[in-house]
């Protein structure tokens, strides 16, 4: 078994999760507190990756990223970036694909905090920015953890989109899920099982550790 696809999966999932966290924080904040009328439309758009089959989403991303089309052409001419068949392309696609898995838990976490926490901070002279980072986020640890875990796990398990826009290049876009698929296609079930087992064990361990931490956090906040 070649360990490279597993490393690639790990890198992709980690990078996607980190970048998405930074992108999702302000969006979740806005969705949680804005009274803007078009909010539901934005929420629905963010949820679309939940509805679209991954291969369909992958197909549209393939078209969008293709250098023969407007967006892909623009990327290539201005940024020198070709997203199709590249690792950065996978990261961008994973970010789009996993968007709801990061934003929804963060938004729900913020909305579940009592409004008085935010208002208390305001009446104590603190800006919205300080309030967000010093009050709201530290009290949303559980939601943050859920968002990070869901995004990471969802990216690890991502297949349809990667297969569509990745091009299966070893060491670049051939992640573990695609490697498993290849082995199954080649009727090489032993190798497929090995990849799947490693993926299963690693993911299981990561999730167990994180949920143990989470339960400890909850106990601190609500002592018996």
């Amino acid at each position, binding site marked *: 078994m070649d360990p490279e696809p597993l490393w690639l999966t790990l890198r992709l999932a980690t990078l996607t999760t980190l970048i998405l966290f930074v992108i999702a924080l302000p969006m979740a904040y806005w969705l949680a507190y804005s009274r803007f009328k078009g909010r539901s439309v934005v929420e629905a758009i963010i949820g679309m990756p939940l509805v679209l089959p991954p291969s369909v989403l992958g197909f549209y991303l393939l078209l969008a990223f293709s250098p023969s089309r407007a967006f892909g052409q623009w990327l290539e001419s201005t940024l020198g970036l070709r997203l199709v068949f590249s690792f950065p392309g996978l990261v961008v696609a994973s970010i789009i694909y996993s968007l709801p898995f990061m934003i929804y838990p963060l938004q729900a976490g913020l909305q579940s905090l*009592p409004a008085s926490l935010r*208002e*208390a901070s305001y*009446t104590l*002279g603190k800006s919205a920015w300080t309030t967000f980072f010093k009050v709201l986020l530290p009290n949303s640890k559980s939601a943050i953890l859920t968002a990070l875990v869901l995004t990471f796990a969802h990216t690890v398990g991502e297949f349809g989109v990667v297969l569509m826009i990745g091009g299966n290049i070893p060491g670049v876009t051939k992640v573990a899920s695609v490697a498993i698929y290849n082995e199954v296609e080649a009727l090489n079930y032993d190798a497929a099982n090995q990849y799947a087992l490693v993926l299963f064990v690693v993911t299981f361990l990561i999730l167990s550790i994180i949920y143990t931490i989470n339960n400890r956090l909850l106990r601190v906040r*609500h002592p018996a």
Partner: protein
Amino acid sequence: MSDTPLDISIRHSLSTAQGVISMEVALAVKPGEILALTGPSGAGKTTLLRIVAGLIQPQSGLVRYGSEVWTDTTGQVLRAPQRRPVGFVFQDYALFPHLTVRQNLAFALDRGQDEGIVDELLRAVELTELAGQKPAQLSGGQQQRVALARALVRKPQVLLLDEPMAALDRSMRYRMQDLLLDLHWQYRFMMILVTHDLAEIFRLADRVARLEDGRIAQVGSPGEIYTHNQDLSEEPLLYGEVLSVEVADDQLVVLALIQQQVRRLRLPQALAPQLTPGRSFLLRYSLETPMIELID
């Protein structure tokens, strides 16, 4: 600054459990005054506090503190809550669960402000020893004191309290009221508190404003509002609460809490149906017969 009055004159529509009511409140709070806001739930008491704090923008109207305009809907002025010299004690205390008591207070410090105030206030509310605890480890009364101390860190000129003692037992409430009076005397802020508790109103408030359906139904001193006899007699009034009632020698022996002390009153037996434990009354001293007046 304790000579600055607060003028409120607003209209706002308020959705309550009973439907939408339109608030229309004009109120002038005197410098250094302690004003109690009371009335049935849904009357707009909390909303009024939040408008003063700048947490809500009224649909129209004006909030002015001395010459400073805080809210003016015609001039499109809405000074942010951060920039109003206001302290707010929330009904649920709104303590930051992830910070210790000391950190909760220190959080409120303005940039460059002397940190000595934190210790001073911790001492004032007798929480120095619990300064390292998290709010979840404290009792209701302790949390309440933290909330109060935290609201005072910035030395507000107006302190707003939303049913601050609703969750406390009687003895704790008395101690808190004492503490509030002490702090008020020491820092000389204007104070507006929402409360349903008559004992609290009588002990703390200079004036009480009764809100009903978004309008001020009555304003006046507690005595004026709660004694139906509105004459301006100079007889001293004592507020009391019935603790227990017994019949002995054709008389009612009533144990009552008056001025924080348990007193025994001997009263005519005819009062028996009304004087039940938990009721409040006013004791009016006069040179003639002392009079008992029951209040709702």
